[in-house]
């Protein structure tokens, strides 16, 4: 009885990131740390920015003015972990994508995926990536892979899962100590941890006194393409008006020379 009560206890969290675009200076440490943490393989020589695997991808965007008035902003974009009408969950033909009720993380299970890429067509953030190549590391470098994350195979889709392996480790640690819930200090994402400017913050958006939820409520916080109604759990904030306009969907197109070339 006790046991079942124990394991049955419901813990609902809504983990999300809040990214301060005014702090981000585009160093890319988040992308690198992410790749190291999640065993994302390096690029084949043939790979380009259209076929690469970047769970955390930093877009460079400009305000469209020209020198010296041109200003640059960096958008670190991972899976936005939509909470509602999640585009990818509903389209996957074989339940390889779902939302973890305990964390609100949108999962992508490479072992179940058949590589139809419908979810990629569905995702407005292009946060899902397809393994066009077999995963390969230089000889010996497989010794540096993270044992808590399985290496994906060619022909499947993969994406950010808020370093879910770290969540699992933290849960296990808590359980070993007989605790149901993990200690927030034990769980943060690689990108948040690596950011030199502390621009990325992970936290439970429902937990009123988590730093993340407070930041997410700040007046200058916004979510990408919010109007699509997918309720993403990744928030961005910036005091610069043009940046917010760039991130939100209901303003006229701003030419973006940046991500060209």
């Amino acid at each position, binding site marked *: 009885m006790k046991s079942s009560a124990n394991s049955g206890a419901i813990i609902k969290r809504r983990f999300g990131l809040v990214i301060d675009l005014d*702090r981000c*200076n*585009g*160093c*890319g*440490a988040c*992308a*690198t*740390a*992410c*790749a*190291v943490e999640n065993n*994302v393989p*390096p*690029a084949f*020589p043939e*790979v*380009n*920015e259209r076929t*690469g695997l*970047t769970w955390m*991808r930093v*877009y*460079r965007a*400009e305000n*469209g003015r*020209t*020198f*010296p008035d*041109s*200003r*640059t902003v960096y958008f670190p974009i991972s899976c936005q972990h939509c909470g509602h009408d999640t585009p990818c969950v509903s389209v996957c033909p074989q339940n390889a994508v779902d939302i973890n009720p305990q964390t609100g993380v949108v999962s992508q299970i*490479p072992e179940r995926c058949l590589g139809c890429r419908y979810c990629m067509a569905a995702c407005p953030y292009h946060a899902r990536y397809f393994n066009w190549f*077999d*995963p390969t*590391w*230089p*000889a*010996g*470098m*497989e*010794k*540096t*892979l*993270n*044992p808590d*994350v399985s*290496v994906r*195979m060619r*022909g499947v889709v993969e994406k950010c899962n808020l370093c879910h392996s770290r969540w699992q480790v933290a849960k296990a640690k808590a359980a070993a100590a007989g605790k149901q819930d993990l200690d927030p200090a034990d769980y943060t994402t690689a990108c948040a941890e*690596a*950011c*030199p*400017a*502390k621009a990325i913050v992970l936290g439970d958006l429902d937990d009123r006194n988590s730093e993340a939820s407070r930041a997410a409520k700040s007046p200058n916080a916004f979510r990408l393409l919010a109007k699509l109604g997918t309720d993403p759990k990744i928030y961005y904030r910036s005091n610069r008006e043009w940046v917010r306009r760039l991130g939100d969907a209901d303003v006229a197109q701003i030419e973006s*020379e*940046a*991500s*060209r*070339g």
Partner: protein
Amino acid sequence: MTNVTRRNLLKLAGGAAIGFMASPMPWRLTDELAIWTQNWSWIPVPPKGEVTTRMTACSLCPSGCAVQARCIGGLPVSLRAPAGSAALCSLGLTGHHLPYHPARLLAPVRVTERADALHTNPVRLGEVVTETAAAIAAAKAGLGTVAVLDMRPGRSISWAWRSLLSGLPGGAVIAGPGREGASLATLERMLAIESGSLGLDFEHARTIVSFGAPLADGWGSPRTLQRLLGGSRGNVRLIHVDPLRSPTAEIADRWLPARPGTEAVLALGLAHVLIAENLVDRAAAAKAVDFERYSLLVSRVTAEKAAAVTGIAADAIIATAREIARAMPAVVLAGEDAGGGRFGRAAETAILGLNLILGNAGKGGGFLARPDLPAPFDSASLAPVQDLDQLPDRSVALLLIDASAGDAAFPWRVVERKLIAKGGLVVALSPFFAGTARHANLIVPAPTFLEAMFELPAGFDAPAATLGISAPLIAAREGGADPASFVRAVAAASRIDLPGAWARSEDLIKARVARIHRVGRGSVMSIADGAEKPLAAVATPDALLEALMGGAKWEDAPSPSVQSMKTMLLGDAAGELERISTCATAPKQSPQYPLTLLPRAPRDATASAVVSPVITKLYRESVLRRSPETAVLNPATARELRLRAGRKASLETAAGAIGVTIATSGSVMPGAVEIAVSPGAIALGDMHTAVKMEILEICAIDESGGWRQSAARLVEA
């Protein structure tokens, strides 16, 4: 009859089909095959084993950040910054990949050039030593001089080199060209300080006037950047002078996009306003021996004139000067760029001279003289440490490159022209067949980060000398050679006896640590718990070593004083500055080369000869950073010259041409071409792509050895 048998066969088949369907085989087979696709033998399997956490420090760039390694079965699988210490850059985060980099050398090699591609053939270490010894002999016999190109001066191995060179003709240790903080040498000469070296005190500066110092791209210790980025930026203001809309410019309070090459004029212009408006402590400034001449010289460079030359509005210049004066102490930097190198003597003198009239010498928030780290051993005679431009051209017969602890990006020609015409030998100590080492005739594989003990002497921007140690976590690969023992071997082979009882690098480091312990000054800062305790409290040298190995840093007690014999505002560049101050207009662009080529790179792309292959995430798998194959123009300029984004083109200067892809961005100064110097294909681990000429090789090199800008043109293919 045939019909009958056929019919029977049919029935047999039918029976078999039904039978199989009724057995688990087809279904299990389908399942097993599906699972097989999850466990393909060619998918790498992560290691299994005990999870441990170990502390060390990053030796890949001079900052020496503290590192916490997560190890599986003793081998690091991820690196991160320990709580409370500065975060790691992309290079540091992937440092544990470098021992497995495809460019990693596992045996000494001889480099030969065939069909415009470099090839390596393994040789025995003995051969390298004898050939080096032979070259030394030849040098002694008058063929030329012997020099060591040290990419990380200040390490105790430098003393080993210096004692090796001391007896040799023209023997000198050359600090890597264009390295961070090199410009301080100029300031040191202007101050003619007797002992120790200058250190920067950012902590107390209220204004940072950065002439091109790429603080946000890794310049100086990350602490500075964090202070600038931190929400509590509060009392420190950043004024950034840079033709590039760089990340540093993005975070600057004021950005002055001076035309490339006119920084000196801008500096003089600022000086003019500061003096004219009495914003400086004249009395302090007047201490300088050449103050009269200086003030006369700057008096010529009015704000208007400076504006005409630099392209920055006169009132902006005036406003800047006032801002500086308002928020003192204001430290002025002539920042080197990891890809663009130094400004050159004249410009550095003009820029750094501002510090003197602002009275920053020996002031908190300015420049402090700090005692050097103790030498690892005493030696009767030591070869000097010099800058490259102090070497006469075509003089060096034997050049030893010590790239064992890191590398830097510079045009090889700046070194090449110091070598004798032919018969000169270049021997490199480097873990990788990449970077500077590619220009050597012989390469000895040194251990790389995490494979051996590295010492991390103070960054130039620390107010006091500090020492950290990067402890090895991985067993050194077979076939490597320890730099110190290589020095010993060479010395032995050419019958030079070296002072001190040391065989390997560790011995040198331990010896130095022991000396520090004997000095007894300063304190030990532990990373694990952030506790700081006086060195006196550390009982034995071994205890100190242990602490440092565990990630602690020793920090000398600060001594905020600069004993300078005489201050010179014009240093040894008076002549050049005279000329600069007199020319009244912007530098002309030749019609043949209408563009100004600005090679740049962030530190994490150049501090090591190679980067982890996963750094492709930043360069090739996304366009966050532009690869060395991409030349970026202002759209307007592109339109003028009828160049289209995305097209292949050849980027040409007087020195040569390379193939690039054109990109456009509004953030680029009209008339300029921005291009990254690193990382190339090899640095990223792609050994198959044939090595083309690299961008730095076509950069023009000015008289003071700088290569920040060159006249160039783009021709669409």
